[in-house]
């Protein structure tokens, strides 16, 4: 299971919005670090308490689409169901019939914006300047959020 690691992502500047640049030794780790980077923008300190578990599956016709779908799902769970992910276990990322499928267990807690003093609302995960690539021995991902 992956947990938030501040050395694995950083905020990047965008005139009106904000983005993250994340890395991972593996694609599942990159996916987790992108998610933690986004949650860090929303909540600052997410803590490590994990008393609830959810299992999710996200699909997309490309890795780019998979990233947008994955982060959008985690943002939706937080916004509507008030589920804050503090631990992520990416079970698999498969490619079948030209479709990428990501399955993951999310460990976390109930967290409303007021209780947790959220600092930023992410309207959406954009495709703008979205990067997902392997450089040397690590995976790099960049995402800009509309806020």
């Amino acid at each position, binding site marked *: 299971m992956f947990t938030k690691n501040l050395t694995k992502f950083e905020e990047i500047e965008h005139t*009106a919005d904000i983005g993250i640049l994340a890395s991972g030794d593996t694609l599942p780790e990159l996916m987790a670090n992108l998610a933690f980077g986004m949650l860090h923008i929303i909540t600052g300190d997410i803590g490590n308490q994990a008393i609830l578990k959810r299992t999710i599956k996200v699909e997309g016709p490309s890795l780019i689409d998979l990233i947008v779908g994955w982060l959008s799902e985690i943002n939706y769970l937080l916004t509507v169901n008030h589920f804050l992910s503090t631990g992520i276990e990416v079970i698999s990322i498969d490619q079948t019939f030209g479709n990428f499928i990501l399955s993951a267990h999310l460990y976390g807690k109930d967290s409303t*914006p007021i209780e947790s003093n959220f600092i930023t609302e992410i309207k959406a995960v954009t495709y703008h300047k979205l990067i997902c690539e392997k450089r040397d021995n690590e995976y790099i991902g960049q995402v800009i959020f509309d806020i």
Partner: protein
Amino acid sequence: MKYKNYHIEKIHDYLFEIPAVDNMLVPGRIYVTEKMMDTIIEEDESIQQVINVAQLPGIQKYSFGMPDIHWGYGFPIGGVAATDYKEGVISPGGVGYDINCGVRLARTDLTVDDIKPHLRKIIVNLFKNIPTGVGSSGAIRKLGDKDMKRLLREGMSWAVENGFGDSGDLENTEEKGVLKQAEPGAVSQRAIERGKPQMGTLGSGNHFLEVDVIDTIYLPNEAEILGLFKNQIVIQIHTGSRGCGYQICDDFLKILARASQKYHISLPDRQLACAPIGSQEGQDYLAAMAAGANFAWNNRQVIMSLAKKTIMETLFISPSDLNFSLVYDVCHNIAKIEKHKVEGKERKLCLHRKGATRAFPPKHPDLPPKYQEIGQPILIPGDMGRYSFVCVGTQKAMEETFGSTCHGAGRLQSRKKAKMMGKGRDLFNEMEKMGVFVLAKGYHTVAEEMPYAYKDVATVTDVMEKAGISRKVAKLKPIGVIKG
């Protein structure tokens, strides 16, 4: 003239043209001064986005950039494009995630002297009664499916019928507060769930409610018709369709990306995903986007109604003492079906205005009778420390820009840089020294939204005035602000 890598022709001191080359179907036209053009080219890639939009099938006349142009997603913010209804496409990138983000202005009979001693209390009570900030909710009861479907279909009349404001407000709202193409069935359950608890909430980012004073009147006759006078207290509200609209845009970017492939539309940018307007996908987006727009009008109407009630209760005054009424409500993130003249012939077009405001001229049939003489009121908010402007539309706007003008100041600094500048300072106190009492959920938001993070909105409105597109009627100065 060569500007960096772009070939750009100067049409006049306030208008530049990018000739149509390569895959561009029409030229680009940007309303800026030479100095502004230098800055725009230096700071981002919005010029390239104007060029990209010029490649959309069915685009008419020009791909426009307004003087507040900056980098957006797909379209630039401050981008306007009209596509032919029969031959053209519709794109969520030309609307944005916050569908029908917009501004409304309400007038009162109060003057700055009436309100000054009670200002802090009014702002505190507004902040208490109108939820702001990340994931804000609970302004009114959480809506059920039935209410959501009704308001998504019927628009702002839902709020009026539920006791928020009165029927006169409909007349003073663009499109009378309803886009009739709306079909709740085209909206996903996710979008409905995101919207349910958020009716009557401001949200975060650059959204706000301001108590403003009319500082300067430029056009006395127009101001009088709008019900505005010097030293008067007015209320300005800037927000949109909240999570409901964000989700609709998100859903349809995926659907329209597939549609772009299906209809063999070659796109320079994934965020310009689009479909022929007449296709099933195009019609579905139009129906869902219209429903999102209807949510936004209800949202601003509920907030305005809560603000009116709060002011009356705080000051212990009657409705007739306050004489509160909506001056006008404009959208600045929208796609609408409108009729315009192209090469002398009237054509049915899809007007994408992304960070741009409709600016219809006097005598236009879509304006309320009382504004027929002066043209459409246009609301252009600035930053929370300096000023905002009320303008009116012109015939030249109709002829040149499909009746469109600018929408705001545009950021000067990134949010990250603005936050860094705010570290270790007492920004609430700094704002108060500027004469503005600010309440916000988070210090971060105040830091991101400080006046130094924004361009001067006066330079933006001046360009459109000098280009003959819109005329300044009044300048508003903020004295109290609530933010997310």
